């Protein structure tokens, strides 16, 4: 369905005037540094990692909000990396996004109804009258009765209701591929399950593929088929959700799992040392080595490749053998 090959995004570092005078060359933040994966039809791939690991940038490149510095994005066998104009618009119909912050993703000066009508009109899928009907059906479907919500403005809605509108807006085009960027992280905990359920319902109904971006590993078991764990712009471990959550091989995955609060007492606890590294200064060798409690000399010298180990891909010189 969607294949990403060696995708990279480097942002030039903003410097002060004085710094520019003395700097020898341009510095870059390597936000995404060579990421490859594939998402099959009807499959959900969870991109997991701390903030700043490049998971959101990866998602933004796929929906073409960010131009990749290198690499390719292939959607249904077609290279869409550098599409523009009408071709890009045509592709956008099939690849939609649900954003993290429902307070910022709706236009404060536009009614809820208009938010849903607009995509239909842009892609000339309906006349205005038809679009209104489709929009009203859609509102009812996401649990916001149209007669109540159609003419309201975003500020009259709660965060959960707004996220339902955002989901409705993305789904009204019946996309085959959805990038969901932490869609529940800013929603009240009590409403999260309902929002996730809504996403899954659409996914099933439209047989969608999805990239679900999250920092919360506990959600991946509910929604995901596979997980890709990212650290400093690279995938460090990728495989089936169940096997990774049960038997993480990369120390970073294990640390993330250890950090998930749980009512069940954990047998093992694996820590991370220190804060996430600055992507301006990516460590030599394994990127995770400065924070890894198991790091040895070779880790600080050589960067491990993402290689097949048993049922998954892992980028570690000494994959763990633990079970949660």
């Amino acid at each position, binding site marked *: 369905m969607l294949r990403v090959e060696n995708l990279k995004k480097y942002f030039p570092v903003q410097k002060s005037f004085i710094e520019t005078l003395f700097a020898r060359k341009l510095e870059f933040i390597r936000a995404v540094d060579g990421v490859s994966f594939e998402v099959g039809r009807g499959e959900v791939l969870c991109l997991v990692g701390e903030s700043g690991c490049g998971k959101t940038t990866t998602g933004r490149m796929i929906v073409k*909000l960010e131009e990749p510095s290198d690499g390719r994005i292939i959607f249904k066998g077609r290279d869409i990396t550098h599409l523009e104009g009408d071709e890009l*618009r045509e592709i956008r119909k099939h690849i939609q996004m649900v954003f993290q912050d429902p307070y*910022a993703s709706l236009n404060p000066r536009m009614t809820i109804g208009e938010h849903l009508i*607009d995509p239909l009109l842009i892609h000339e899928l309906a006349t205005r009258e038809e679009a209104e009907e489709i929009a009203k059906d859609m509102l009812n479907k996401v649990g916001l009765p149209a007669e109540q919500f159609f003419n309201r403005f975003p500020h009259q809605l709660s965060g959960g209701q707004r996220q339902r509108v955002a989901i409705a807006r993305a789904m009204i085009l019946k996309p085959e591929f959805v990038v969901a960027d932490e869609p529940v992280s800013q929603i009240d905990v009590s409403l999260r399950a309902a929002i996730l359920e809504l996403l899954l319902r659409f996914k099933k109904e439209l047989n969608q593929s999805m990239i679900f971006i999250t920092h919360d590993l506990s959600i991946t078991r509910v929604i995901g088929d596979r997980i890709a764990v990212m650290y400093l712009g690279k995938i460090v471990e990728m495989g089936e959700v169940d096997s990774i959550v049960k038997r993480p091989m990369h120390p970073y995955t294990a640390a993330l799992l250890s950090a998930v609060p749980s009512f069940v007492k954990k047998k093992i606890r694996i820590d991370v040392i220190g804060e996430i590294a600055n992507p301006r200064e990516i460590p030599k060798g394994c990127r995770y080595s400065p924070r890894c409690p198991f790091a040895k000399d070779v880790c600080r010298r050589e960067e491990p490749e993402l290689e097949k180990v048993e049922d998954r891909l892992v980028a570690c010189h000494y994959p763990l053998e633990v079970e949660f």
Partner: protein
Amino acid sequence: MSNRMLYAGLAIISAVVFMAIFAPFIAPYDPTKSTGDVLQPPSAEHIMGTDNLGRDIFSRVVYGARVVLIVVFSASLLSMLVGVPLGLISGYYGGKLDRVLSMIMDSLYAFPSLILAIAIAAVLGPSVFNAMVAIAVVYIPTYFRMIRGQTLSIKTRLFVEAAKVSGASNARILRKYIFPNVATTVIVVFSLSVADAIITEAGLSFLGFIVTAPTPDWGFDLSSGKPYLPAGYWWMITFPGLMVMLLSLGFALVGEALSEKYLAREER
């Protein structure tokens, strides 16, 4: 507080507009004809006195509201129609176009408004229309800068990106997603720039760039009254001068009140 400012400003503006529209019914005398003795101080017959040609100053003040309102309103409308689209385009597209436009606008902005208006009016020649153009040019950068700045910040907001993902064209994003979010600013800048333009208009008129005798206009009457002030005939310039101040104050109050009410709140 901002509500009281708003209502006070609106009251002043509507009073002056009312006065301008119904001038023939309000003014007791013909403003262009001598209707009494010259240089009479305010009295029951001539409540603001008479000028050096024996014309009733109150009538001239009432009729004088017409020129200033027409010039200032049409000038501000014109600068809005030019400044707002340019600001939107410049802020949204950025790049070279933005640099060039910003540079032009900054150089216009660098001149004191009255001096620039005089220069333009002097080139174009004295007439109501030319004065309108001169004042319009002066206030284009005000709209441009405000709208460009707002556009710069709004275009990075998530809902604009969401519109992009929906496939919206740039023109559609500007029209449906960005412009409605800067509309309040446009109204605020309009009233503040009108307040300023009133003073500029009076200045141009004072220098004889807008009307010729015997047309009544506040700024123009100020200049005809000026030579008589040292001799103690204070009423010739006091009343037109007060009206300039009052009308400008009215628009400034409305502008400040609106900006306090709407702009500050949106910044949260």
